């Protein structure tokens, strides 16, 4: 079984400031890791994913995340946010195949960017 913890339910930040959204996970098996973004009244859009290899993963819209196996973390970062980044961000994990391939999501972090 897997679980995901997003400790911050809301993160307010000023435009052009850096931001980090935290994600920690727990799993008894190896997992893939994901960050999805959900804009108001829209579905989930993949930001980035970690499958294997380099622990620093770059995604769309200038976001990146670093996989830390020892700390079981996958924090999302952006060096300079824009108003348009205001959205809900979900961290998720899944097993490799079969019934373990279902996504387990965190509770989400609402990023609020202001001027």
């Amino acid at each position: 079984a897997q679980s995901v913890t997003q400790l911050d339910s809301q993160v307010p930040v000023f435009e052009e400031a850096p931001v980090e959204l935290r994600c920690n996970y727990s799993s008894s098996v190896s997992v893939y890791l994901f960050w999805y973004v959900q804009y108001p009244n829209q579905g989930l859009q993949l930001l980035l994913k970690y499958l294997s290899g380099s622990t620093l993963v770059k995604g769309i819209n200038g976001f990146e995340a670093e996989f830390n196996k020892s700390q079981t973390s996958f924090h999302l970062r952006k060096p300079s946010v824009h108003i348009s980044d205001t959205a809900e961000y979900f961290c998720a994990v899944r097993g490799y195949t079969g019934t373990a391939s279902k996504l387990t999501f965190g509770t989400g972090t609402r990023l609020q960017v202001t001027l």
Partner: protein
Amino acid sequence: GAGVSQSPSNKVTEKGKDVELRCDPISGHTALYWYRQSLGQGLEFLIYFQGNSAPDKSGLPSDRFSAERTGGSVSTLTIQRTQQEDSAVYLCASSFRDRGETQYFGPGTRLLVL
């Protein structure tokens, strides 16, 4: 189409009625998932289809919920005798099997049970 589509986009129903929600996955994707997003429960897995294998129904909250996938493509999620706690956004996702690390989500069906 280019992405996962779902219909209807919104559904309002009365308590006790049955509803059907439809999902059209990306062409060629063999895996299909249903999730539910609600204020109290966040995003939760409901059911998973992979090819002709028996579906993983472990996330279905009660026997009022069922789903089928015809011809390995379109899926229908049926909720019988709807209750107010069924109000949520129902999301469908699809992926390639085993190459399918990424699940692509549809826009969802927003269900309101009065």
